[in-house]
């Protein structure tokens, strides 16, 4: 495998293969109630406590569309720069399974609610556009639990009927890194919109991964395999890597690739055949006669458009223009909505005389390090944006040095303390009185006369020694800039 100019290719002898990837992402709609019933959707509830007669498919029960879920899907479509279809149709996808009470899943087959769109990925070598084929609404199934009893399978229907958005990409992705960026971008957009929490651990975001390979430069697609239901970015990347190599090996051996559905075994790090094309289910899709076609007006869509917040791409552009941030910095700040929120709150709290660069460095440096070590999200930050802004201002206006600031920051973490108070209580205020510093430096030069002479004779390295002595003598509180200036003058 080679990575030249971040191009992801698989090498075998003289041949190079390109990997083509398309994703079907299943994103759980952020909604209090289910797609066609009023049951709650809270994660982690006791089994079968969020199940209505509709969810359990009792005789004579009928689905009624949840308008909020429709709005969420349309908003997501807008966020994906996609065409919103004013008329869409719910179909039944028929198959038998114990955790599918109706014996069919209500989904959208021919006429989805959202059509073609696109998302932009920021890759190290520039931007990449990924096409969206469609987004449709569908019901989730329940959960079969096979490991609670040696003989029986248990079924939990809490998830049955929960609204999902299936977001289908075009086969535009070419590497595991792009998949990583794509999923993160989708998640970021949906979190900005508040349409999906993007929580992969809780299964709110999972994907079927379609992988094929073709000789580099070829225009035709190879035969694809679909890897079902992968629930983390890491596993998606591992599965793609394994699957692409498996397919290349087959081609190299002169064998053909069968179109099939495969499963990724996370323990063995390999994909395994689940069913071939011949065994593929015949889902017997047909329009659900219990539901009328879903029709939305131009006005309905316009109102939702007005409801769309600033999305990551626009925010990034604005941050670069407004605060002269680098694209790299802006990316880090906007990719997660909570980081963006924190940053913007810090900016607001810093007031007039603010140092944005300094704030950015501290967020991406000290704050991220603390969050990382404590395993916290920025929304759970132990330091509030308000106190964080005060700290940055204290550095900016010279009250404390960057070094002292680190000490102050550590003290702030415990109980979100006001940095101003810490500085006062601990007497950490920077010494910026030139007269006091001059006296201090005079004493140091006096005490180290020989070294001062050596310095004057050209041993410039010794300058650092004097700075160190001065800082030490001041208990670290001396304004380093002033120390520098005074030393240069005196020596």
């Amino acid at each position, binding site marked *: 495998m080679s990575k030249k100019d971040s191009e992801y290719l698989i090498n075998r002898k003289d041949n190079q293969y390109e990997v083509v990837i398309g994703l079907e992402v299943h994103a759980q709609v952020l909604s209090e109630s289910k797609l066609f019933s009023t049951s709650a959707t809270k994660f982690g509830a006791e089994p079968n406590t969020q199940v209505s*007669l509709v969810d*359990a*498919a*009792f*005789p*004579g*029960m*009928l*689905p*009624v*569309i949840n308008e909020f879920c429709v709005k969420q899907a349309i908003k997501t479509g807008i966020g994906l720069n996609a065409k919103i279809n004013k008329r869409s149709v719910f179909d*039944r996808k*028929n198959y*038998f*399974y*114990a955790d599918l*009470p*109706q*014996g*069919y899943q209500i989904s959208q087959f021919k006429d989805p609610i959202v059509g073609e769109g696109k998302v932009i990925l920021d890759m190290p070598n520039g931007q990449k556009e990924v096409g969206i084929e469609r987004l449709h609404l569908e019901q989730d199934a329940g959960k079969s639990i096979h490991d609670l009893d040696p003989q029986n*399978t248990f*079924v939990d229907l809490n998830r049955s009927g929960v609204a999902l958005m299936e977001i289908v990409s075009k086969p535009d992705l070419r590497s595991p890194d792009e998949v990583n960026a794509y999923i993160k971008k989708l998640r970021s957009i949906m979190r900005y919109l508040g349409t999906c929490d993007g929580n992969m651990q809780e299964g709110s975001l999972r994907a079927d991964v379609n992988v094929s390979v073709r000789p580099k430069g070829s225009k035709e697609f190879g035969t694809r395999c679909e890897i079902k239901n992968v629930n983390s970015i890491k596993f998606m990347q591992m599965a793609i890597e394994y699957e692409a190599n498996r397919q290349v090996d087959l081609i190299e051996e002169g064998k053909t690739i069968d179109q099939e559905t495969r499963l990724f075994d996370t323990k063995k790090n390999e994909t395994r055949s689940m069913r071939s094309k011949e065994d593929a289910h*015949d889902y*017997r*899709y*047909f329009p659900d*006669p*219990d*539901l*009328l076609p879903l029709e939305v007006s131009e006005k309905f869509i316009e109102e939702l458009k007005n409801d769309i917040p600033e999305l990551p791409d626009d925010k990034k552009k604005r941050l670069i223009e407004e605060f002269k941030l680098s694209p790299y910095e802006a990316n880090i700040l906007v990719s997660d909505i909570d980081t963006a929120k924190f940053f913007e709150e810090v900016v607001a709290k810093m007031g007039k005389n603010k140092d944005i660069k300094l704030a950015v460095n501290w967020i991406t440096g000290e704050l991220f390090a603390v969050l990382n070590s404590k395993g916290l999200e920025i929304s759970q930050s132990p330091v509030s944006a308000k106190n964080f802004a005060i700290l940055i201002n204290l550095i900016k206006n010279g009250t404390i040095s960057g070094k002292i600031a680190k000490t102050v920051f550590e003290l702030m973490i415990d109980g979100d303390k006001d940095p101003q108070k810490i500085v006062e209580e601990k007497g950490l205020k920077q010494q910026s009185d030139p007269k006091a510093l001059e006296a201090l430096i005079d004493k140091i030069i006096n005490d180290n006369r020989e070294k001062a002479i050596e310095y004057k004779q050209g041993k410039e390295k010794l300058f650092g020694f004097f700075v160190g002595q001065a800082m030490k003598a001041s208990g670290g509180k001396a304004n380093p800039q002033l120390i520098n200036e005074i030393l240069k003058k005196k020596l």
Partner: protein
Amino acid sequence: MSEITKQSLTELVENIKNKKLSSTDVTKAFIDRSEKSEELNAYITNDFTSALEKAKKFDQKPNLDSKLPGIPMAVKDLFCTKDIKTTAGSKILNNFVPTYESTVTENIWNEGAILLGKLNCDEFAMGSSNETSFFGNVQSPIDRNLVPGGSSGGSASAVAGQLTPITIGTDTGGSIRQPASFTGIVGLKPTYGSCSRYGIVAFASSLDQAGPMAQNVKDCALLHEVISSYDPKDSTSIDFKRNHYSKELTNNIKGKKIGIPKEYRVDGMPKEIEDLWQKGIQYVKDCGAETIDISLPNTSYALPTYYIVAPAEASSNLARYDGVKYGFRAKGENLIDMYEKTRSEGFGAEVQRRIMIGTYVLSSGYYDAYYLKAQKVRKLIKNDFDEAYKKVDAILTPSTPSSAFKIGEKTNDPVSMYLNDIFTVPVNLAGLPGISIPAGHDSKGYPLGLQIIGKAFDEQNILNIAYAMEEKINFKNKITDWWIK
């Protein structure tokens, strides 16, 4: 005062309101007769004990302003009734007791009526003779070993045999009108979307409609007024302004234009049916209405279309009966085995036949040729009616191509059985209202019905025409009580 069970709903309501009868009197009378009528096999489940209790309770504090004050009635066992077993005539739901009430029955109880019990029907309403019920065939009160029609056979038998003053059935392809015609009673299939489907065991969702069955048109209008309501729990329920059907009922149909569709004169139709139709035409003319010959050119495609659409929807609707959540479950080696055994043992032959037809027509590779084409033809059939209604206010046809047949006569010939629905099926496909009224007898003395088909939401008009014709026809049902020992 005549014998209680011989009284019409209208008379009973009046007598209860005038305190000439108590709900207990009436309820007791129908229970007594029902108990003597076991041979009809009209009931699957009776709720007589609690019906009497409810009647007594009603009498202690009667609400005489309601539309069905203390009136006992049995309903088709396709309507889910809270805490009362609801089987849909199937083994697979033999032990199923809903915790909820269908909207239609809820509307009925809200108007003061009292549940007598659940009436027999073809399994999942699939049948035209009530012979597919897991609980055995129903006898017609008209004659021994005669089918009452289907699928609302128990309902028709119970009304004609005076086991209940009125009832409700469901009609997917003729399941109210055909048994009404076979047993000499009135049956209305309302416009699709008029009565809520919530809580009715589904057969074919785009065709199913609940409707009233009664001794006469006025009773039918009153019951329809009670059951028709907009229901947000059913996405296909339609919010339109509903009439006070019984209050607005009139026999003045002067100047109405009645269409006579030539395509309903089918090959092999007995002369008796043709004669009946001609008599019907004369009756409407006598009432001051005008008849106009019309054409519904796609009529002959209705039955094949129906037998694609209905089984397709049914095959999916019945997937939920899998032994996992409720109802009958057979033991199996594994999940698939359990499914196969449960559904093989739980469903009868006719239901299995339709599930297989439905599964077939929806299969990939066949969908376009069958289901999609059927949907297109369905639209053409609807267009036929739309075209006709530019010229006429309603359409008059026979209800069925023959009178009732003997039990067992057609069980081995499903196609001949399906042909029974030839005049009723187009109405369901077009979502229109249709009413069957008794209009005469054949040479064997069996009742024959005429059907009046209306424009969508125009139930009042067809009820009025039926009401006017009823007066002219002056039909007397020949009930001999042959089954009562």
